[in-house]
C-alpha cells in the first residue's frame, strides 16, 4: 500500500464514525428544511413545533425502550400492550380515588413488572427468540388490560396526573406570548433521553448491553451474566412503556382499549430509521431520537399538506427500507473484507 492509499484509507476510517453517528441527523435537518420551504408559514411556527413534540412524546419512550432491546439483538413486540395495560391500571387506580402520587407511580411499576415478566420469560423459559415471548405478551398484556377495564374507556384524571403529558411551562417571563409555552412532555423527553444516553454510553451495564449485541458468546466468556443484563434491559423497556402510558394519560385524559395499538411497530421503525441494527450491537440513543423525529415530522408535514394517511403509510414504509439500504451501503465501506 503506498502512502497515498494509506491517507485515503485513514480519511475513510476517520469519517465513518462521524457518518455513523451523525448521518441520520443530517437527514433530519434536510427534512426540516424541505418541510420549511413547503410550508413556510406553518411548519416552523411555535405552535406546530410544540405540536410535533407533543405527538411524539409517548412514542419516543417506547422507541427508546425497544432500542435497548434491539441493541441486544432482541425485539420487544409488547411495548404497545404494556403501555395500554399500564394506562388501564392507572385509570382504574385513579378512578378508585387514590392520591395523585400513587396514580402517577402505578403505570411505571406496572410497566416495569411487565418488562420483568418478558425478561424472565425469555431467559428462564429459554425461548428460542424474544420475538416469541413478546408476541405472546403482546396478546397477554392487552387482553389483561381489557379484562380489568371491561374493554371500555375510563376517562377523567386530575391535573397532577395529567401534568407530564399535558402540562405547560409558561415562558412569558422571557417576554414570549402566552401561546408560546413549553410542553412539559418535551422537557421530559429531553431528560429521559439524556439519562439513557448516559446509561448506554458511560456506564458499564450500557457497555455490556452493546457487547451482548455484538457477540453474546464473547460477553459470556468475559464473565458477564448475560441473562441478568437481558432481564434488566427488558424491564427498563417496560418501565419506559409505563412512562409512555403516563404521558398518554395526560394527553388524552383517558384510558382506552385501543391505546398504543400497533405502536410497537412505530417504535421498531423509529429505531431502524435511526440506524439501530437488527443484528444487535449497533445504534445510538441520538439516532433513535432522530428516528422518532423523522417519523413525527413526516406525519406532521404530510398532514399539513393534506396528504392522505394512506400515503403516509407508504412513505414511512419506504423510508424504513431506504434507511436500512443506506446502512447496508455504509457497512460495505466501513467493514474490512
Amino acid at each position: 500500500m503506498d502512502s497515498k492509499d494509506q491517507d485515503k484509507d485513514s480519511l475513510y476510517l476517520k469519517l465513518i464514525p462521524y457518518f455513523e453517528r451523525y448521518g441520520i441527523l443530517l437527514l433530519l435537518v434536510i427534512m426540516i428544511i424541505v418541510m420549511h420551504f413547503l410550508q413556510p408559514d406553518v411548519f416552523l411556527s411555535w405552535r406546530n413545533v410544540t405540536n410535533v413534540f407533543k405527538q411524539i412524546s409517548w412514542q419516543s419512550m417506547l422507541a427508546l425502550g425497544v432500542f435497548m432491546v434491539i441493541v441486544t439483538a432482541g425485539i420487544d413486540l409488547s411495548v404497545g400492550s404494556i403501555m395500554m395495560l399500564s394506562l388501564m391500571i392507572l385509570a382504574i387506580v385513579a378512578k378508585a380515588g387514590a392520591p395523585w402520587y400513587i396514580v402517577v407511580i402505578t403505570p411505571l411499576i406496572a410497566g416495569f413488572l411487565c418488562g420483568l415478566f418478558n425478561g424472565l420469560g425469555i431467559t428462564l423459559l429459554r425461548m428460542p427468540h424474544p420475538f416469541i415471548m413478546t408476541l405472546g405478551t403482546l396478546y397477554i398484556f392487552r387482553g389483561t388490560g381489557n379484562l380489568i377495564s371491561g374493554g371500555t374507556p375510563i376517562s377523567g384524571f386530575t391535573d397532577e396526573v395529567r401534568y407530564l403529558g399535558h402540562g405547560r411551562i409558561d415562558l412569558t417571563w422571557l417576554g414570549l406570548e402566552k401561546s408560546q409555552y413549553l410542553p412539559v412532555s418535551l422537557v421530559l423527553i429531553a431528560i429521559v433521553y439524556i439519562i439513557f444516553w448516559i446509561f448506554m454510553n458511560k456506564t458499564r451495564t450500557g457497555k455490556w448491553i452493546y457487547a451482548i449485541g455484538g457477540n453474546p458468546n464473547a460477553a459470556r466468556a468475559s464473565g458477564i451474566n448475560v441473562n441478568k443484563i437481558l432481564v434488566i434491559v427488558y424491564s427498563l423497556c417496560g418501565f419506559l412503556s409505563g412512562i409512555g402510558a403516563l404521558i398518554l394519560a395526560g394527553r388524552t385524559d383517558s384510558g382506552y382499549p385501543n391505546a398504543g395499538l400497533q405502536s410497537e411497530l412505530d417504535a421498531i421503525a423509529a429505531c431502524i430509521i435511526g440506524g439501530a441494527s437488527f443484528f444487535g450491537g449497533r445504534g445510538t440513543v441520538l439516532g433513535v431520537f432522530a428516528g422518532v423525529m423523522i417519523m413525527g415530522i413526516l406525519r406532521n408535514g404530510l398532514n399539513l399538506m393534506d396528504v392522505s394517511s394512506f400515503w403516509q403509510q407508504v412513505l414511512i414504509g419506504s423510508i424504513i427500507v431506504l434507511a436500512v439500504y443506506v446502512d447496508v451501503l455504509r457497512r460495505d465501506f466501513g467493514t474490512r473484507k
Partner: protein
Amino acid sequence: MSSANQLLLEAKNVTKYFGTITALENVNLKIHSGECLGVVGDNGAGKTTLMKVLSGLYKPSAGSLHFEGKEKVLESPRDSQNLGLEMVYQDLALAGNLPIGENIFLGREPTTNLGLLKFLDYKKIKELTEAHLGKLKINVKSADQKVEELSGGQRQAVAIARSTAFNAKVVIMDEPTAALAIKEVGKVLDLINGLKKTGVGVIVISHRMDDIFAVCDRVMALFQGTNFAESELSNTSRDEVIGWIMGKK
C-alpha cells in the same frame, strides 16, 4: 530462575460426561510457568472439552483441578480468571462492534462508582490498552479501532492481549492460528514465545504440527477422551505425534 519450573496448574483424573457420552476419562495435565504445552488430538478427542473444564465453563463430572498446589473448584469463567487462568477461544470471543480497548477489558472494565451505577473510565481503558499492546509489541492504528475493522491476525493478537491484560499465569489457546493467513501465523507464534519469556504457562491446542514444533516444549495427545501419549518435544518427531493423533504408538 526458580520460578521457571514452578507447577502452576494440574488436572487430576478429570472425567466429563454429557449424558451417556464420555467426553473425557481420567485425563491428567500439568503446566509449569514459562512452559508451552501442546495438546493434540483428532476431532472429538476431547481437547476442547478439557479446555472448557480448565476455564470453568464446564464442571468436571469427576476429578479435580489444582492451582499452584491447591485444589480449586471453578464455578464459572470468572473464577478461573480470578486465579490467573485465561482462555483464548477459537472463535476469538471478541465483540466486533466494540473498540480494541473495550474488548480487552470487557467484563473487567475499570470504573468510577457512583452509588449503584458504575461509570466506565474510558481514559484509563485507553491508557492501559496502549501500554499493554506496547508491551506485547502489537501494532494497531489506534486502541479505539473497532475489532471488526481488524485482520484475522490482529484479532488474534487482541484476543491474546485480552487474555494477558490481568497478569495471567496460564493462557489456554484453542487453535490460535487456525483462522489466520499464513503471513500472520508467525506473528502470533512470536507472541506466544514472548509470553513464555514473561513466565506465563501456555497451553496450545492445535492441529498444525508447524505451530506445535515452533513454540511448544512438551506435547500431549488425547485419544477418545483419554491421555494417549506425552513427551518432551525434543524426544519426539512430527511423524510420531501425527501417529498419536490417529491412535497409533
